[in-house]
């Protein structure tokens, strides 16, 4: 009997992994443009971080006539090295997305000195063919926190109460995410020091069910608006918001289109744009080799996205003006945004 149960469990496991990513990923490449490999620690379809990077290379394909292939590791640590090697063998520019590649990319970059590596979301210096792009997530999140703090007492909107509680669901408790958290909290306090920020970590970037669970907890603790920084897990946050009549802030891409009725704005991390820019720079030959390129508010690497004009806008013009004001102050250095540890 026990054996049956085990077999069943085992099967569930295999089948569930098999069902997770059944979309066909690699784009067949033809033509003779520059070859770009896009290596993802996770997989496409997150409508967030990885999809954004994909948009960047897609745009580069349109504008510069490059060819590209996508290499997904699907959060399997044993594939990081293999996919990176395969991409390096194929392409002359390899865009690497995911903090997980920190060691591997340094190792492999040394093995392929003729390949340019664009490593997104980390900071490595001193390897000639490796350009890292670091985002000031804290700066963008500061704006998100400020907006949330302004909205949380806006009782004219149905579903928002007087309580000054806002929330955040993080994917995994790691430095990048804590950098979001630091900015978010600081932004909220900047508007109103009495605002309470509740933060939960789902422990996963790929599990919407956990996102929903955590968001539901936050909403039940009185949060009106929850900032999701959890990749695919964040889709569960949106679901919970829709079911409970509450609100959410999206992340990485401008996610309002997913559900404009509950997503008030998105902290856009322009991964795609930065990859696009760097590919352009490499082709033009003006890159800082072995350097870290920072993308903050100043470089338009992060911003707050309000969706398109046909969507209902929860943020009033006054609020947007206030956000612009804060943004200017951050760029000028008047406001110093703390970093996550």
């Amino acid at each position, binding site marked *: 009997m026990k054996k049956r149960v085990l*077999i069943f469990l085992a099967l569930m*496991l295999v089948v569930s992994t*098999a069902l997770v*990513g059944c979309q066909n990923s690699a784009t067949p490449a033809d033509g003779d443009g520059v070859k770009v490999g896009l290596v993802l620690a996770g997989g496409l379809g997150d409508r967030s971080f990885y999809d954004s990077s994909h948009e960047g290379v897609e745009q580069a394909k349109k504008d510069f006539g490059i060819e590209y292939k996508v290499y997904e590791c699907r959060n399997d640590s044993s594939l990081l090295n293999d996919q990176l090697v395969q991409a390096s063998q194929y392409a002359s520019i390899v865009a690497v997305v995911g903090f997980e590649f*920190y060691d591997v990319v340094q190792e492999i970059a040394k093995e392929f000195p003729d390949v340019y590596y664009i490593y997104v979301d980390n900071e490595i210096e001193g390897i000639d063919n490796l350009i890292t792009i670091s985002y000031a997530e804290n700066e963008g999140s500061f704006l998100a926190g400020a907006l949330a703090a302004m909205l949380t007492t806006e009782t004219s909107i149905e579903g928002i109460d007087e309580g000054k509680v806002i929330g955040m669901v993080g994917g995994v408790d790691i430095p990048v995410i804590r950098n979001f958290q630091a900015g978010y909290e600081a932004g909220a306090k900047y508007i109103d020091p009495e605002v309470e920020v509740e933060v939960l970590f789902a422990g996963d970037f790929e599990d919407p069910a956990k996102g929903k669970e955590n968001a539901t907890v936050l909403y039940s603790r009185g949060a009106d608006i929850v900032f999701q920084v959890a990749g695919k897990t964040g889709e569960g946050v949106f679901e919970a918001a829709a079911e409970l009549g509450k609100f959410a802030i999206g992340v990485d891409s401008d996610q309002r289109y997913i559900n404009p009725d509950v997503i008030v704005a998105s902290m856009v991390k322009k991964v795609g744009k930065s990859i696009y820019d760097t590919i352009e720079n490499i082709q033009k030959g003006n890159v800082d080799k072995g350097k870290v390129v920072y993308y903050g508010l100043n470089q338009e690497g992060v911003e707050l996205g309000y969706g398109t004009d046909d969507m209902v806008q929860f943020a009033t013009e006054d609020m947007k003006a206030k956000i612009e004001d804060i943004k200017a102050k951050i760029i000028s250095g008047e406001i110093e945004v703390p970093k996550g540890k």
Partner: protein
Amino acid sequence: MKSILKKGNLEYLTSLFISILASLLIGALIMMANSRSPLVGYGALITGAFGSTYSLATTFAKTVPLVLTGLATAISFRSGISNIGGEGQLYLGAFAAAYVGITFTNIPGFLGIALAILAGALVGGIYAFFPALLKVKYQVDEVITTIMLNTVATLFTGYLVNYPFASSQGKMGGTEMITESFRLSRLVRLSTLNTSIFFMGFIAIVIYYLMEKTSFGYDSKMVGQNSLFGRYGGIKDKKQMVVAMVISGALCGLAGVFEVIGVHYRFLQHISPGYAFDGMLIALIVKNNPIGVILMSIFFGALKTGSISMENAIGIPSELVSVIQAIIILFIAGETGFKNIYKNWRLKKLHQGKVGEENV
């Protein structure tokens, strides 16, 4: 080897072979349904897994953790106690190795490696000891406790690497890198294959010997098959289960150790993509046979390595391989599978002949 080819085993091997063939066939049908040629697809898979020194090395690199976790499962299941907590033991073992690697930085390399291996095995073993104790003392179902302890271990190590042991370099959930002298050297350029495969080979031989050639292995098998019979024959069945569980935990811990000192050179928050569960599947498929575990691990490793190449080369999603694995398990683990279909078919043929004769 001879004993593997006994009649019962032969029957099983036939059905395993047919199962694999059938699942590959279904895989081919899926490819065809997506208008891809299965010949090209499987061609890419085979080349990707065995086509060059690099791909061969990558395949074998993948088998190291699978063999260890597979043997871990085999030894516990055979003793009648189910260790589903391999993943947790692996994480703790890996962390223990990393801890050794970043703490005892001024001892000689070979000593450090030995210490890391010992620490990982010890921690994994201890972590398996408690659910085993609960099982034999208080009849607490070990399936449930070990599954739950997985979560405890992954969350605990997740906390450790993000707070007290967080790396100062880069943004990542990981510890500092271990001392250079403790790192096992790579064997083939670009591949993560490293000398841990020799350690694994040695461990596999020891475990094989233990399971198949010793009174300990005999006792385990008997207790697993019929614990009352074992006790009646003078085996301390509870002790046997606990020891088997501890060995199982130690093996999983070792799988973690080699991920740290051989592959990543540090502990990472998500260091295992579920090796212990893959190992469990492997052990289930080969019915806890240690040699079977090794062969099936190579097969699984090849499937994984090859599937990536297949995906990159011709765009067939590597998930197809998961489907293939699932089908194999469906056929094999259900224990009816093709064995009975084949038997019935053969019997019918036999009997049709016989009835015909009688009628004449």
